[in-house]
């Protein structure tokens, strides 16, 4: 049986006076990996931020695990079991690797223990005491993903985790996403890197100018390549 973990209906979002999202609709089932595709500036990052209440103002409906989240402050939304990995990674300079890892509070049960995370990302284990922002770009990305796995979040919002990283790191992150999927996590990925996202996702949505303009399952991917080529240049 598939159950919806996230349903977004008619979501509008604003930064001050700028109206960025114009009625976004999509849904994600429990245990599904869904990728938001789109050109730069299409509104994918804003969509993730709007889910968390990190935009200036928003309207519409965001149902997370059966609860309406549109009126909640960000910390209450997180506690519905949401983990967020921001596009800029958001590693804290004044915190060590270890402090960054243990910073987010638990938002659910069944999180992955720190020691297991260090086993998944051995580079981090070696650099526990290092200032967070002294890690390499790839290590910072691993840390940004690892720290939301500790919390027991079941819905992960991952914004461009493959961006700007060496191929070997990108492959390691792809393995991580696959592992998480096997463990039943629900994942919304924003990706520019189509080759990274294509083999990982169960379904795709395409965004354009603050709206979802298409949605299809992975099986329909071959038939959609022409459209994607035109839309995204992939």
């Amino acid at each position, binding site marked *: 049986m598939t159950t919806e973990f996230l349903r977004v209906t008619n979501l509008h979002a604003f930064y001050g006076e700028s109206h960025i999202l114009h009625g976004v609709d999509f849904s994600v089932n429990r245990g599904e990996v869904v990728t938001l595709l789109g050109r730069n500036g299409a509104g994918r990052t804003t969509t993730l931020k709007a889910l968390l209440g*990190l935009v200036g103002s928003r309207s519409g409906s965001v149902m997370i695990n059966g609860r309406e989240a549109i009126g909640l*402050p960000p910390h209450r939304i*997180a506690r519905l079991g949401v983990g*967020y990995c921001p596009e800029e990674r*958001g590693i*804290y300079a*004044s915190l060590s690797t270890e402090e960054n890892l243990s910073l987010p509070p638990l*938002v659910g049960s069944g999180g992955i223990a720190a020691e297991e995370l260090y086993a998944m990302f051995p580079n981090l284990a070696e650099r526990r005491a290092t200032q967070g922002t002294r890690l390499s770009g790839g290590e910072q990305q691993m840390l940004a993903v690892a720290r939301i796995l500790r919390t027991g979040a079941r819905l992960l919002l991952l914004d461009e985790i493959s961006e700007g990283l060496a191929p070997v790191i990108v492959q390691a992150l792809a393995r991580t996403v696959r592992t998480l999927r096997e463990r039943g996590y629900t994942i919304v990925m924003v990706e520019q890197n189509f080759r990274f996202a294509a083999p990982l996702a169960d379904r795709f949505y395409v965004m354009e100018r603050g709206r979802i303009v298409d949605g299809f399952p992975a099986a329909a991917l071959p038939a959609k390549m022409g459209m994607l080529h035109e839309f995204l240049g992939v």
Partner: protein
Amino acid sequence: MTEIFGFPVVVVLGQLVLGLVNGSFYAILSLGLAVIFGLMRVVNFAHGAFYALGAVTALLGLKLLGVNYWAALVLAPLVVGLLGILVERLLLRRLAGLDPLYGLLLTFGIALAIEGTLQQLFGSSGESYPVPEALRGALNLGFMILPRYRAWVIVASLAVCFGTWFVIERTRLGATLRAATENAPLLQAFGVNVPLLVALTYGGGVALAALAGVLAAPVILVNGTMGSSIVIVVFAVVVIGGMGSILGAIVSGLLLGLAEGLTKVVYPEASNIVVFVIMALVLVLRPAGLFGRE
């Protein structure tokens, strides 16, 4: 008699110790200011008023309820801290995201209101707070006779400063506070109740001011405006240490107390302005402050 640069060593040492006592007050007060500024970007002009309120609360507690000094050391900061939380929740919160100038004006207004109220209630002459029994008498340091109470002030404030530094730099709560200072929206998206953290931080900073007030009560005249002159020096200390730097606030608080003490030996006329001269020099040579990040 032994001399350093023509000044008797005993005199120099004596003034340094007295400078350290003043520096202890500077350190606790600037620590609270730095914690508040770091997280909230609010220059808390009401800090001196909360310092006075701490001393007055201790005095009232003693006279009306028989609360002794040791209990007041805990209770007065608690009461004043709760008042601070109220001020943050009801007033300061509304200014979040606006020009910092508004926060400055609001806290200045709060300072005037608190000091005015205290003056209205207790007059402006001031009252002394008795030195607690256990701390009466003096220590003979060889080069000077130091009242036991002043030695206690140094020890207590070093302990408070170290404790605060430890909590902020070495504990999980402190890591959360540092993270909030750096990127609060993301921290809130992780599930931390940042608005509550901000209120508690303001309450904590203000409680430190009140603690300094209780420590000061037995060595000065307690009145509503006792904070208005020291707080000006403390603002200079915070600027010298680097706005928002915890270690900077503590170290420069103590150092500037010592600098004042030395100046009293070398050129007493300048002892009231030496802090501001140093501030001007620091602003020219290292605008972010001695411990500030550029």
